[in-house]
């Protein structure tokens, strides 16, 4: 009897799993009158990277949200960074609902919101995202504007390609589209024109009438709560014969050169600089870094590492790689891991929800270099900022080994009489404190608090020095906080 019970249970679980899987992967058309598309108004308050103790004035960002069931809405991540309030309006309803951010992926550029009111999703119809991508094909953009009902505009879906999204680090698949219509690219739902099966979410549309769509399989992967793998290296095309000959390549139809390896990543310890990548998952890689995909045609090799399409996803599998190293073929296996954030020396792209850190010492502001700090200097930022910081940002974003630290720099001196000797200092890289190399703000804070010497001795990369008595640091900080209305000595 017990055994029978167990059997029943087992069969039930199997049936449930099969059924759940069937439901999960089934493509459900989205009707023109389905209540799935929502208007989302997000008030955001961005941090100030130059004066990191304060925020900027609040702004409002409008975007489209798509109801995905369980009281959840999917929207572009760009809309919710540094949000203070989220308001959601359902179609044909004047009532406004509030929501909170549940999850966000900065590389995919999507976020999931959850209604605060458990009854808010009543009468909303969930959109499901499956693996189906119809390429090339005609699609419809479903958007909801102001108080008007749902509008549909036609687009042409051209091809699948790979690239890092506007603010991400990982190259991910996107569908290139064209349209004669004017579109916003703020999270509108794309469905196939005849079957009305969801194809993706529009996240970018340019003035030249082309745009980009996040394909359904990537969206589903994100909704399922999974992270995105990263191959952990960058490559350079290997087209010219002199370089090919130098690396001992005889055939001129294969291979790209490994140009950069992220410490702590999937490729770390597996690939080496100047390896020639010949094959990935048994696909031959051409000298420009493309392979022939049976369905999508020529695709960038990154697809073989980063895609989440069910049929050819490498997620959770060991990837077979063949390289040419020191003029000999070598077979390797690579375990896919997410991007190691610790490998990023100078954050770039968007802020990935990171507020700028600062540490004030003797009324002097120290920060860690990020691209956001530099771009905050206006359109001409490349001409305005310190040339050394600009150079570092261009060439040393990624650590070259795990021991390399962040670039800690003195961003400004808050003028007080006690630090007047150093008022002219700004945008200088901090090299050492009491003779110890500085690698992060946290370490700098520890060095100061644990310093056993009566003086604290700062040395900048150009030799400029600043010296304070230990007790001066606290008293000047107190004076700076009062004088310049700064709440805290640090924000981490």
């Amino acid at each position, binding site marked *: 009897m017990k055994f029978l019970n167990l059997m029943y249970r087992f069969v039930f679980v199997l049936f449930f799993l099969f059924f759940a899987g069937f439901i999960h992967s089934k493509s459900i058309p989205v009707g023109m009158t389905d209540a799935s598309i929502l208007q989302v108004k997000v008030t955001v308050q961005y941090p100030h990277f130059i004066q990191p103790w304060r925020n900027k004035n609040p702004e409002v960002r409008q975007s489209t949200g798509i109801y995905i069931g369980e009281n959840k809405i999917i929207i572009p991540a760009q809309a919710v960074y540094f949000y203070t309030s989220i308001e959601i309006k359902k179609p044909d309803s004047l009532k406004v609902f509030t929501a909170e951010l549940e999850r966000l992926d900065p590389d995919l550029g999507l976020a999931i919101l959850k209604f605060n009111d458990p009854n808010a999703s009543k009468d909303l119809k969930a959109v499901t995202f499956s693996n189906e991508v119809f390429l090339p094909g005609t699609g419809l953009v479903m958007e909801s504007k102001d108080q008007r009902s749902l509008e549909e505009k036609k687009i042409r879906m051209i091809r699948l390609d790979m690239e890092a999204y506007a603010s991400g680090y990982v190259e991910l698949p996107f569908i290139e589209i064209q349209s004669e219509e004017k579109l916003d690219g703020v999270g509108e739902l794309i469905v196939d024109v005849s079957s009305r099966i969801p194809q993706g979410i529009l996240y970018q549309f340019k003035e030249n009438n082309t745009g980009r769509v996040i394909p359904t399989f990537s969206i589903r992967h994100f909704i399922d709560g999974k992270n995105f793998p990263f191959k952990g290296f960058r490559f*350079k*095309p290997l*087209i*010219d*014969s*002199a*370089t090919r*000959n*130098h*690396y001992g390549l005889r055939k001129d139809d294969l291979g790209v*050169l490994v*140009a*950069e390896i992220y410490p702590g990543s999937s490729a770390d310890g597996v690939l080496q*600089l*100047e390896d020639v990548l010949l094959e990935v998952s048994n696909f031959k890689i051409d000298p420009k870094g493309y392979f022939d995909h049976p369905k999508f045609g020529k695709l960038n090799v990154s697809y073989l590492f980063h895609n989440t399409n069910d049929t050819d996803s490498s997620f959770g599998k060991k990837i077979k790689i063949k390289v040419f190293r020191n003029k000999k073929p070598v077979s390797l296996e690579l375990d896919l891991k997410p991007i190691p954030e610790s490998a990023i020396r100078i954050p770039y792209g968007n802020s990935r929800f990171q507020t700028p850190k600062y540490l004030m010492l003797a009324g002097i502001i120290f920060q860690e270099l990020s691209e956001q700090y530099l771009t905050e200097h206006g359109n001409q930022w*490349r001409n305005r900022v310190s*040339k*050394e910081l*600009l*150079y570092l*940002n*261009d*060439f*040393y974003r990624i650590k*070259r080994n795990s021991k390399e630290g962040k670039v800690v720099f003195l961003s400004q001196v808050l003028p007080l009489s006690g*630090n*007047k*000797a*150093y008022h002219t200092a700004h945008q200088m890289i901090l090299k050492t404190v009491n003779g110890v190399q500085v690698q992060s703000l946290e370490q700098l804070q520890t060095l100061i608090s644990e310093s056993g010497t009566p*003086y604290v*001795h700062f040395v900048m990369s*150009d*030799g*400029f*020095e*600043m*010296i*304070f*008595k230990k007790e*001066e640091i606290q008293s000047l900080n107190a004076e700076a906080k009062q004088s310049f209305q700064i709440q805290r000595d640090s924000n981490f």
Partner: protein
Amino acid sequence: MPAISEKKAVAPNMVDSNKLMQKQKKILLSPFLFASTILFFIRLFLNPLSAEEPRQSIDEIKKSVVQIRVFSQAKDPFSPWMSSGISASTGSGFLISKNRILTNAHVVSNAKFMETQRNNQTEWYELKVLFIAHDCDLALLEVSDPKFYEDSNYLELGSLPELASPVDIIGYPIGGSKISVSRGIVSRIEQSTYAHSQIDSHLVVQVDAAINPGNSGGPALQDGKVVGVAFQASTKGENIGYIIPTAVIQHFLKDIEDGIYHGYVELGIQTQPSYSESHRKYYGIPSVEEGVFITKVLKAGSADGYLKPGDYLTAIDGRKIGRNGNLLETNSIDFLEVVDNKFAGDEIRFDLIRDKKKINVKFPAKKMIQMENQRARYGVNYDYLMFGGHIFQTVNRDLLEAWSKNGQTQGGSLLVYRFYDATTLSDGQSEDVVLYRKLPHPINSNSDFYLNMVVEFVNGTKVKNLTHLKELFQSATEKTIRIQFYGIQLPMILDREESEKADLEIKKSYHLTGN
């Protein structure tokens, strides 16, 4: 007092002379006027110098000021095998001895042909440059035809003008053929950057008079003596001009006494003020001692090997230095001005505190080779190297400016950073060589990745300069040449024979000559 005694038109006296005498007697008897006369003589007695000052008439001054017409042609640093178009310009100058004309270096830079004329002369006389000093924007010229000097006059050098005193700027501005005089007041005396070289900083006198194109090289006069050479105008304010004071002119004239212009010496240190008591106590500096801390000693500068970071400089040549780096005696002149007045080989003496001990250090002044590429250059042929259609050149100001004018500003942060920090990054021996452009050919179609990068190694050898790079390419026997650049990990690979072969085709296609 103004330099030029103005002539006034005098109306002939038509009054009867007897009547006039009687009238004058009456005047003398008038007590008020009598007192005025007495006061006039007292003033004359108390201030006898002004009455004795040499004052030249405008006619005499006109005889010494010349107009200079220049036809110039420069090399294009971005395409160093090409010359720019021929342009004509005018400037001014003046005779400082019987047959020597002083003007600005920028008036005669890149000149292919020059001629000059004095006021009221009808003929233009051919000129030649005897000495040119781009670092202080001065040049000495000569006319070979003695007829030019007939009935000429020359001007004497005066001293530094007082603040708020008037000066007259004489020259031929805006291309006019008639001499022009404009009067201004000395509004500031300071060390400032000379626009011609863009890097050198010397004493300048600011005047509130317009200095227009064509004025350059003309004299600024006070009491009939030269107090400066008009040379640049402010881009920020209106009617603000600058003159090169006589101290700089005299430095130039003394420098060329041996027949060669050597140029300015550099101390080669970076300093910071010493306002902070904690900073001073940390280094054990007594509170009574004023001075500045050395933060960096540049390689191959005068101070290299003699001064050290952390040294506290208290006096230069016995003249005390303040906490802000100015000489205590004036508190308006940077102590570096003392070095500016020296010549190569002259001794520089410092009183300093090192490791809490007072010591004296002395060393000879010398030029810094690294400064040459920082300076805008004129009349030079830019050396370059082409290999596989890739153009390499030494990183220098002219190239960088031409490069940015060509819109090559994206991705060039390495080049820009290494140029602007060259004095601190340089080891004093080597120069940066940059791959700044390519002449397209199938052989180099994939090398854009390496554009604007600075060469570090070739086949494992550290590159010292452009000549060294040429040698490395020429002496290479390997089939492939591996070039590594600062900042990027992947080398550029070139096939030696294929590159050399392609260069022959490229030279022909793009009309390259020389090199």
